[in-house]
């Protein structure tokens, strides 16, 4: 664990890869991005009610004046939470399945794999709490995603370190884009409310904060994957495009059912 922290620290100081800026446009990437990133399991457990800077600022308003959510907004929010839970479930299972074969062959990856797994498990707990709190139905394809994700993780790990990292890269690229579009939609919702003179409550400020934090952590995993020779996987383009297409299909399906 200690070594993983020092690894991360050195990674942070070494700067970011260009792909990072491409996925997280400056508009949605606060300069303090790394500061709100939580990496220890302890703070992940309390992630259900994160109180970041934005949230505490809104809580001080004396008289709440909030607009009822439209049907479209509620549908968007429930499918967003549902697909996020499914995605984090899949990510957790991918890392669980990847770890034994991968660590067996490359023992030095053990801390990194444990670290990434812990973060994904924290995200999954966050969305489990949010889904129960907001009474959203979990995806009906839960067992299907469980089997597919475990199979994907195990399969790529058996193919080798590069393939496993290419899998991480492809999955995290899709997930990063996906979180970004959710954050963008939420911010558009906020703009609409503020233009009409309504306030944005802590519930939604916290949600955006949580999504931003999780998005940043996912993109961090993307960096790790690239540093571990994801691009060396053969055939790289086939592997990543198949996995990316699979992710998009899974996101599409989980939004619906």
């Amino acid at each position, binding site marked *: 664990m200690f070594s993983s922290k020092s690894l991360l620290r050195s990674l942070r100081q070494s700067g970011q890869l260009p792909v990072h800026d491409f996925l997280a446009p400056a508009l949605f990437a606060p300069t303090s991005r790394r500061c709100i990133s939580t990496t220890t399991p302890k703070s992940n457990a309390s992630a259900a009610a994160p109180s970041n800077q934005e949230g505490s600022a809104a809580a001080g308003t004396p008289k*709440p004046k*909030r*607009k*009822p*959510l*439209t*049907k479209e*907004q*509620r*549908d968007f*929010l*429930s499918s967003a*939470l549902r697909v996020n*839970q499914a995605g984090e479930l899949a990510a957790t299972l991918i890392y669980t399945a990847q770890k*034994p*074969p991968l660590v*067996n*062959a490359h023992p030095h990856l053990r801390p990194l794999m444990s670290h990434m797994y812990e973060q994904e498990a924290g995200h999954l707990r966050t969305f*489990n*709490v949010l*889904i*129960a*709190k*907001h*009474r*959203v*139905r*979990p995806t*009906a394809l*839960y*067992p299907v995603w469980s089997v597919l994700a475990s199979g994907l993780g*195990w399969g790529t790990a*058996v193919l080798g370190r590069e393939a496993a990292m290419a899998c991480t890269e492809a999955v995290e690229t899709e997930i990063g884009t996906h979180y970004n579009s959710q954050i963008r939609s939420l911010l558009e919702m906020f703009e609409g409310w503020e233009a009409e003179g309504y306030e944005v*409550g*802590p*519930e*939604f400020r916290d949600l955006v904060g949580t999504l931003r934090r999780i998005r940043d952590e996912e993109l961090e995993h993307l960096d790790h994957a690239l540093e571990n020779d994801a691009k060396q996987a053969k055939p790289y383009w086939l592997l990543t495009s198949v996995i990316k297409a699979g992710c998009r299909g899974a996101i599409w399906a989980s939004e619906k059912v």
Partner: protein
Amino acid sequence: MAPTTRAFATRLASAAAATTTKSTTRSTAACLRSRSNRRSYHSHDHPPPPGAFNTAERQILSAAYRHVPDHGFTHKTLSLGARDAGYLDISTNVVPEGPFSLIKYHLVSKREALAPRSAEIFNAPVGGADGATPDAAAGTRGQLLTVPERVERLTWERLLANRDIIHRWQEALAVMAQPSRVPASLHELALLSDEIYHLAGDLAVDPSWYTKRASLSTIYASSELFMTNDCSAGFGDTRAFLRRRLDETSSLAGVVGSIGQWVGFTASAGLNVLRSKGARI
């Protein structure tokens, strides 16, 4: 002769029309409707979305509901409600689905009444409500119960809410079982199961979310049917029936869960044995 035949033919035609249009077109309307108020994101910060009925509908339906014990879930009851609420006979047309809307009013209002009732039952301090000083350390009654116990208690409360109209409920079930009404009726049943599990404090969001709600829906529907024929004092037989069904399900779920655990354990043990032999998996 001729006029009688004609009248008969017209009536036949309109009866045929009623059934055919209902089965072909109403079902799409029902689907649209159930889609428009399906279960969705529940905000704790924002005012709730508008309810299932608007003001005029609620005025007529709530006035009509008082006539259900005497006149059943019928158009006549709706007309009486419209009259009581100060409307015209024709105003019943604002209630979109006629008698079925009256049934829905019963289902929705009794489901919505469950939340305050649950707070009353479960938030009462352990010592009893009257006289005894609330003991914060002992907690509330609800905290002493497990989730399945709270589910049983709430399901029983919901069944009891049928008490006043139970002699009319078989008619209502017949209306709800019409093909065009089935989607909306099942949707209401699903909302009830979800409400009960939510109020019981169940937080599971894995596939058991579906199995729990599906089995509770089945149990509730069969208990309700049992209740329509129950003459025992205080519907004691119905409660015994409900408890038996819930126990059966939980023991079945226990068996299924144990099998799942065993399979998982054996698989991972097998995998580890292979790994210890040097297999790169």
